[in-house]
């Protein structure tokens, strides 16, 4: 293990807390980036990749901050590209594949409604930098939520086929939603310090908001007792390795490459 990587590992709860937020945007952004040039139409292609770029912009702010409060000479790129799978703390939801357009929209929809609540609360943090990032992000996230919610309604209340596909996506992705409201030890420490958001408190509002849109979309709200979890602790689904190998390829093959 190089000393550089050692330094990435030697950080406090705040850095882990930042990973917990930023890695969601990073992996979701990477997933959306896979759709570049694949549509399904020119207009939705550019809309989804715009969202991807918004998310990457937010990730940069978080990682610049994390790099700054790390001890060693760590850069934002090191944090994005040089960690191992178990060191990424994103939820399982965001790593789910672009099975079809309904899945891409469903994943976005289920994440955006969480993201907006998180950004709203993060503005009350005692950490000025996190407050600033949240304030900057919230307009973008509001648009993401509007875009994905509109599409859920269109597909749900569209044709028989679009409704079936949207319902399938929501049913399949629902089991990943509970994890959004889990907290790690680092999260709890940050909540105690007045820096982190207690996501457990957001759960009821989230399911209420999401259910309202689903009902408007004439879709059924799934009823599940068992949910999937693990991402927040670094235990990911089988998809994660493939995402990382593609995402990290350039930095691994050409360390420090810039353009």
């Amino acid at each position: 293990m190089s000393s550089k990587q050692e330094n990435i590992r030697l950080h406090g709860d705040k850095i882990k807390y930042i990973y917990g937020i930023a890695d969601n945007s990073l992996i979701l952004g990477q997933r959306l980036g896979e759709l570049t040039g694949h549509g399904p139409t020119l207009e939705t292609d550019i809309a989804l990749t715009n969202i991807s770029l918004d998310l990457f912009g937010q990730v940069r702010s978080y990682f610049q901050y994390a790099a700054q409060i790390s001890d060693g000479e760590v850069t934002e790129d090191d944090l994005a590209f040089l960690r191992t799978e178990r060191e990424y703390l994103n939820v399982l939801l965001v790593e789910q594949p672009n099975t079809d357009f309904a899945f891409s929209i469903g994943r976005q929809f289920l994440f955006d409604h969480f993201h907006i609540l998180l950004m709203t609360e993060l503005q009350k943090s005692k950490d000025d930098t996190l407050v600033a990032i949240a304030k900057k992000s919230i307009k973008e996230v509001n648009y993401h939520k509007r875009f994905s919610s509109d599409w859920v309604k269109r597909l749900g209340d569209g044709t028989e086929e679009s409704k079936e596909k949207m319902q399938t996506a929501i049913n399949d992705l629902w089991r990943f939603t509970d994890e959004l409201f889990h907290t790690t030890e680092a999260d709890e420490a940050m909540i105690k310090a007045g820096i982190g958001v207690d996501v457990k408190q957001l759960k009821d509002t989230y399911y209420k908001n999401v259910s309202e849109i689903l009902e408007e979309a004439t879709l059924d709200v799934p009823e599940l007792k068992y949910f999937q979890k693990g991402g927040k602790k670094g235990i990911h689904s089988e998809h994660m390795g493939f995402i990382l190998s593609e995402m990290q390829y350039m930095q691994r093959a050409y360390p420090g490459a810039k353009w």
Partner: protein
Amino acid sequence: MSTDKKTKNWPLWEIFVRSKNGLEHRHFGSLHAADADMALENARDVYTRRSEGVSIWVVESINITASNPEHNGEMFEPAADKVYRHPTFYELPDEVKHM
């Protein structure tokens, strides 16, 4: 969702963007969308992602009546030799802009 039966494409919309307050909306291009709301969102993503605008109008292309290029002779050519219709014989005060 209304679609053009023949091509299975969404209808075409013309997009007008005002680049800043005080200026007029200008035609930026066209795109496909199922309805006006989607046309607005698509226009936002396609045409204003580099902060080109502060306001967007969308009009379904089918609602635009265009002049027929075959009639250009009778429509436009007669104006070509009537130079006296240009307001170039007046002195404009410096304060008047965009003329």
